[in-house]
């Protein structure tokens, strides 16, 4: 048996040491060992089970304030004698709860399915020397697992045995941290028993590469694995619209309470004057009730009577709109990527409208902006340029060229195992590039590098030293000795020069060393490597000494291919007023080149750089330098910038002066965590202000957590801008979770980002349509939905409130209970739902073409207080018109041509008819996109109302206590006066609306043109002269400040 003491300090939630019996061998009797209980390897991300679904879901739902409020109203109706039956609010509430429960149940079922897929994944377990296939969920701590190449580790393992000779194995952690390079892990040997480290640990979720199979012992399983611990429970994200709804709700709650208070007060004032009349005596119970209790229940009764002003059904309609609306994203064929055979994915439907509100985009570089696919484009040898394509046909190579290609083959850390493996993709690109010109790297065998040259000869070089790359030196070197000429030592160096034309450029240089020189360098290096103190500095000094007097041979240009239409997408997004920040873990040069390539930095962009390099210039302490630089940039970008008037688009500003800001991880951490608190806050502010005034910001060398920090910083800055993060790797997960909207790219680097995102799309280019078209439309739809809902309930309940003034504040409802209940559920809900699913006030092509249209709805434009007030005023106006129009008509209730009179239910029915028609027609006026569904639903709702009213009033319903509406509707229609008043009031109500449409300032010639284009029905209208796929604007390093 083996006993492991693992110690991975710092991992929160992990026991710092655990004892594991490998293979579950019984422990020796002499040792007092109580087998600890470890959880099994089951992954549970679902919330409910079949059994606890109902109670747990109900509990969750009633934690929502709105639902709880409706529950209280319902209970009040059940307990207190209220004007309306409990059914009126119970039925909608039941409906809401059921629909939400079904939706959540469905979502949880999907999670169960995903869990099952993971848990039932078959793995091989070695038990008593036999191999057993087992379900992943059944793995216990201490099991010995066998994992084969390309398989994913089902739990955290300690490597015990590898099929490779050297006892190592390679893993990729792409699905964990997004790094797709291969990492080496070593077998835990007996020598190491007491000091197992990360190099022995194989994390769940990582993939085994280039190793046939390994055996490992499970140490952490299930929810205790690193991956599960890293998985932060997705916190509920709430959209800006939802916050607006809550604010409006408070206003309406205030209106509701004040209405109830006014009525209660007036009731008692009225009662003091109008004593109990002989014709309407109180019941015994009423007489006995305590006066104050009576007042309280009266207040509650009024609350119940007016509670329809806070629309129960709004929640259900909003939920349905979001849920059903999100299907349009998954259904969109433009999001379908033939390569991966997948379309877009919607993980939460709660944030659809937030897609229309984005102000900041944080994008990952590798895999998101670029394809993470390096390609050797060209090289320059001795001043001559060679492009791929013309070089290979040439047969003649001069010495320089051969030297150059040989250098390419030697100076790298590439391993050859069924393809090339390296920690940096550009190394592979270079090796592959050399291969195209005839020099093939055959591999590294016990310190010997073999190269197949053009003449099909194998050249062998002994690798003596590798002088690793570091960002400060910005170069790497190797020392090799030729096997053929053993006295010849060479140093080959790559140094990254800069970024030109969007390519990553590396220079190649060499020098020959004499044996003495080598011996000295070798001694120095060995000494420095073994130094216990200042090892870094010492090494650096040696490196610098070695890498001098080099002879330049040439330069290479490697390109990280951009994603399709990356530049156009970025341009469109910037045109829509969004600021794009690139957050990458990559080197600054690479990142900068990408920024240039995709048009984030332009030729005339003045770059403000805040990196270790600029900080170390000038020879002063970093802290001081940071302070100075921040002030300087601030002066440049913020204070000196011409004041931008509102309304002037930023495009114009860009033509004047354009700033780009570059910061790296180290500098950022200095900004964020400066030594003194006041300084830190000041720096943060300065930093934010500079960044917000720059067109684009590039943050390089970011740790995943720092990405999230930046997002958080911007998110909480002034004005609380809406942020969006887009990334493809697990290293982007933190920022995807942090931002308001997280978008995952279904890229090569695993599914972590996709899983944690709110929306996932196959490619970056899809972001444009997702935001500009879908986001815009969703926002307009839901904003209108919200405003309309409040409006329609205000003018629904206002007549009821006014009626109290005419019925002695007795809580007499104006409308019949059926109408009260059905109004929001049946008569007026479908048209708005259809509207909120189908409306396209501007059609999709136009939205995509004119990205500036996105700015029209920025900053929650359709839910501002001004507009809310307008809708509220409209609701009040309509309510007044409905009530008093009918009130004046009823000054003589003899409305039929046979002299018969109408009663109170006729009154209510006339008001209600006017209400339903006006509210529906108001929506019809707002509808700009009439599909057959809109027609069907709008006219269908009205027809249904008429049909229902006939039906409801046509039968004596045995279950009803009161046959209030018996033939009321039919009789109403038999009265000409009722018809006339209904028509009059509908037209009068809609008149201001129509007038406003005409008087409203034309939305600019632009908008006009837009609508014209739109109606022309020409989806394939010529594209605006977009930039070519890759804009290779020449940009000079000199643009950089300093």
């Amino acid at each position: 048996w083996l006993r492991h003491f693992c110690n991975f300090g710092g991992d929160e939630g992990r026991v710092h040491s655990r004892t594991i019996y490998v293979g579950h061998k019984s422990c020796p009797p002499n040792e007092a060992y109580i087998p600890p209980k470890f959880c099994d390897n089951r992954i549970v991300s679902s919330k409910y089970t079949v059994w606890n679904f109902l109670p747990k879901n109900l509990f969750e739902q009633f934690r929502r304030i709105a639902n709880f409020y409706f529950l209280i109203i319902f209970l009040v109706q059940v307990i207190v004698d209220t004007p309306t039956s409990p059914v009126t609010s119970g039925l909608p509430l039941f409906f809401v709860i059921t629909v939400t429960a079904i939706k959540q149940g469905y979502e949880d079922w999907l999670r169960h399915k995903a869990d099952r897929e993971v848990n039932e994944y078959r793995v091989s377990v070695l038990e008593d020397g036999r191999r057993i296939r087992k379900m992943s969920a059944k793995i216990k701590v201490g099991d010995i697992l066998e994992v084969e190449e390309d398989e994913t580790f089902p739990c955290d393992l300690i490597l015990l045995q590898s099929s490779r000779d050297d006892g190592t194995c390679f893993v990729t952690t792409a699905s964990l941290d997004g790094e797709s390079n291969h990492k080496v892990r070593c077998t835990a040997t007996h020598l190491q028993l007491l000091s197992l480290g990360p190099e022995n640990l194989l994390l769940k979720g990582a993939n085994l590469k280039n190793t046939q199979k390994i055996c490992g012992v499970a140490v952490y399983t299930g929810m205790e694995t690193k991956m599960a611990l890293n998985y932060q429970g997705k916190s509920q994200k709430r959209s800006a619209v939802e916050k607006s709804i809550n604010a409006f709700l408070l206003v309406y709650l205030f209106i509701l309470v004040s209405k109830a208070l006014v009525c209660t007060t007036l009731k008692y004032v009225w009662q003091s004057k109008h004593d109990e009349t002989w014709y309407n005596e109180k019941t015994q119970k009423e007489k006995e009730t305590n006066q104050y209790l009576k007042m309280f229940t009266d207040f509650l009764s009024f609350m119940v009577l007016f509670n329809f002003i806070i629309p129960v059904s709004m929640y259900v309609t909003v939920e349905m709109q979001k849920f059903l609306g999100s299907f349009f994203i998954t259904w969109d064929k433009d999001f379908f990527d033939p390569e991966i055979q997948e379309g877009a994915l919607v993980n939460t439907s709660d944030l659809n409208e937030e897609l229309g509100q984005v102000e900041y985009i944080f994008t990952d570089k590798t895999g998101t902006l670029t394809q993470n696919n390096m390609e050797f484009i060209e090289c320059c040898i001795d001043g001559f340029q060679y492009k791929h394509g013309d070089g290979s046909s040439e047969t003649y190579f001069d010495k320089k060229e051969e030297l150059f290609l040989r250098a390419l083959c030697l100076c790298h850390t590439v391993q050859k195992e069924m393809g090339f493996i390296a920690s940096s993709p550009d190394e592979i690109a270079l090796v592959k590039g050399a291969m195209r010109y005839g020099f093939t790297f055959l591999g590294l065998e016990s310190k010997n590098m073999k190269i197949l040259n053009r003449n099909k000869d194998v050249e062998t070089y002994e690798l003596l030293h590798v002088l690793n790359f570091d960002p400060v030196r910005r170069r790497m070197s190797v020392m090799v000795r030729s096997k053929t000429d053993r006295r010849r030592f060479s140093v080959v160096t790559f140094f990254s020069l800069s970024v030109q034309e969007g390519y990553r450029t590396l220079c190649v240089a060499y020098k020959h060393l004499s044996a003495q020189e080598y011996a000295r360098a070798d001694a120095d290096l060995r000494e420095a490597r073994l130094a216990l103190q200042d090892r870094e500095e010492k090494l650096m000094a040696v490196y610098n000494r070695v890498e001098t007097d080099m002879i330049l041979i040439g330069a290479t240009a490697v390109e990280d291919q951009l994603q399709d239409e990356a530049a156009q997408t970025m341009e469109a997004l910037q045109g829509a007023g969004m600021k794009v920040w690139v957050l990458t873990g990559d080197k600054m040069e690479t990142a900068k080149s990408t920024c240039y390539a995709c048009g984030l930095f332009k030729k005339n962009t003045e770059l403000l750089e805040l990196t270790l390099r600029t900080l170390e210039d000038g020879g002063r302490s970093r802290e001081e330098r940071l302070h100075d630089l921040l002030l300087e940039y601030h002066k440049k970008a913020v204070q000196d910038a011409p004041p931008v008037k509102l309304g002037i688009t930023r495009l114009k500003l860009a033509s004047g002066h354009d700033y780009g800001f570059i910061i790296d991880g180290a500098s950022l951490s200095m900004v964020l965590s400066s030594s003194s608190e006041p300084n830190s806050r000041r720096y943060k502010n300065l930093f934010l202000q500079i960044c917000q005034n720059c067109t684009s910001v590039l943050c390089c060398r970011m740790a995943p957590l720092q990405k999230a920090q930046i997002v958080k910083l911007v998110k909480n800055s002034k004005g609380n801008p809406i942020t969006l993060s887009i990334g493809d790797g697990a290293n982007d997960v933190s920022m995807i979770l942090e931002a308001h909207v997280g978008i995952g790219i279904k890229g090569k680097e695993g599914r972590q980002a996709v899983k944690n995102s709110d929306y996932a799309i196959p490619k970056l280019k899809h972001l444009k349509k997702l935001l500009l078209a879908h986001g815009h439309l969703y926002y307009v739809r839901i904003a209108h939905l919200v405003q309309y809902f409040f409006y329609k309930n205000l003018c629904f309940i206002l007549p009821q409130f006014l009626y109290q003034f005419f019925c002695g504040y007795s809580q007499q409802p104006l409308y019949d209970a059926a109408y009260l209940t059905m109004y929001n559920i049946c008569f007026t809900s479908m048209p708005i739902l259809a509207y909120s699913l189908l409306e396209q006030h501007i059609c999709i092509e136009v939205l995509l073409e004119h990205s500036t249209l996105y700015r029209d709805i920025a900053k929650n434009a359709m839910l501002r207080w001004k507009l809310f007030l307008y809708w509220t005023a409209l609701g009040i106006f309509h309510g007044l018109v409905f009530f008093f129009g009918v009130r004046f008509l009823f000054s003589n209730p003899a409305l039929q041509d046979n002299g018969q009179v109408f009663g109170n239910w006729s009154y209510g029915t006339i008001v209600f008819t006017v209400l339903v028609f006006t509210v529906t027609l108001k929506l019809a006026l707002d509808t700009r996109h009439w599909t057959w569904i809109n027609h069907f639903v709008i006219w269908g709702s009205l027809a249904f109302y008429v049909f229902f009213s006939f039906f409801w009033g046509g039968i004596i319903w045995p279950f009803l206590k009161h046959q209030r509406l018996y033939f009321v509707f039919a009789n109403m229609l038999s009265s000409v006066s009722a018809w006339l008043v209904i028509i009059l009031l509908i037209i009068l109500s809609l008149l201001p609306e129509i007038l406003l449409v005409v008087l409203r300032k034309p939305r600019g010639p632009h908008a006009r043109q837009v609508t014209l284009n739109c109606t022309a029905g020409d989806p394939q209208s010529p594209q605006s002269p977009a930039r070519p796929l890759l804009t290779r604007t020449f940009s000079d390093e000199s643009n950089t400040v300093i």
Partner: protein
Amino acid sequence: MMASSYKDEDGHITVSGSGAAAGAGGGSLRSKKPENTAFKQQRLPAWQPILTAGTVLPAFFIIGLMFIPIGIGLYVTSNNIKEFEVDYTGVEMSSPCFTCSQNFSWNSTKPCTCSVPFHLDQPYESNVFMYYGLSNFYQNHRRYVKSRDDSQLNGNEESLRKPSKECEPYAKHNNKPIAPCGAIANSMFNDSLELIYIDPNGTKVQIPLTATGIAWWTDKHVKFRNPGAENTNLTVVFQGTTRPVNWRRPVFQLDSDPDNNGFINEDFIVWMRTAALPTFRKLYRIIQRRSNVHPTLPRGNYSLEVVYNYPVRSFEGRKRMILSTISWMGGKNPFLGIAYVSVGSVCFLLGVLLLIIHHKYGNRNNAAEISH
């Protein structure tokens, strides 16, 4: 509900879906490629109306031009309706019914009568409708409105014996169920009004009043029914119940005509339809036009003979008797006419104003732009 109906219809609106999807998916597995249907791609053919001055202006003019004549017509019609109102509450000392109103008592056995003289300036040509009007009477008070048992009124025997709780405190009296129960029935208007025409030569002619046709047909024939469907002897049917406390007669003695007695008594049905506002009128009698030669009510002096049973002074109410002719739009009400004329004129004026603005300032919207 909605969503499913969308999906059902998908099939009808497929544009070119199957071909494209099949191409990508091959024959093997169902591809995840979204279907290319007009609905799913949000490309349903749509009508996109644009409201511009061009489309709206004609609407304004049309509304204006339609509403003004309608309004004038309504106003003229309403003005042609003859209406006469007399208040017989007896609040003033000089009023003939003053004594009756002062000496009112529920227990008095002898009815108090008074006659109110009045003069009609014009002859009433067609059928005349006689209303009683009450003011400050809250028939729409919630406790009052619900204080009835529709099932009892529909002739349900069980409800007759066991009135609903809603009728409290008018459900039972001396442990006997009240029929009809409830506050509404209990407070039924029970003044009786007679019209007497005083000939220029002094002879008094009683005007014949029709007591039927005053309630909604459906109320009389469906909603209100006497219990014991076959049994025409109402006295037997209502045995075991008691009359409402304030009534002088039991329900089965409301009228001698069996078709207008019991719950289907039209006066009772009319009263049971609660009024919308505290000042209301209810149809009491119809004076049918007898001949084509003589007006229904000739010009001259009349006397309203009141049997004063209904107390309203306790709640500062008023009682009126209204004589009115009726047109196709109902009783006299100038509101509709005025409203139509004003809305029409406002529309018209706005139309003119907009036209001026439109012509002066903007040539931007020139034509109706409704396109498909």
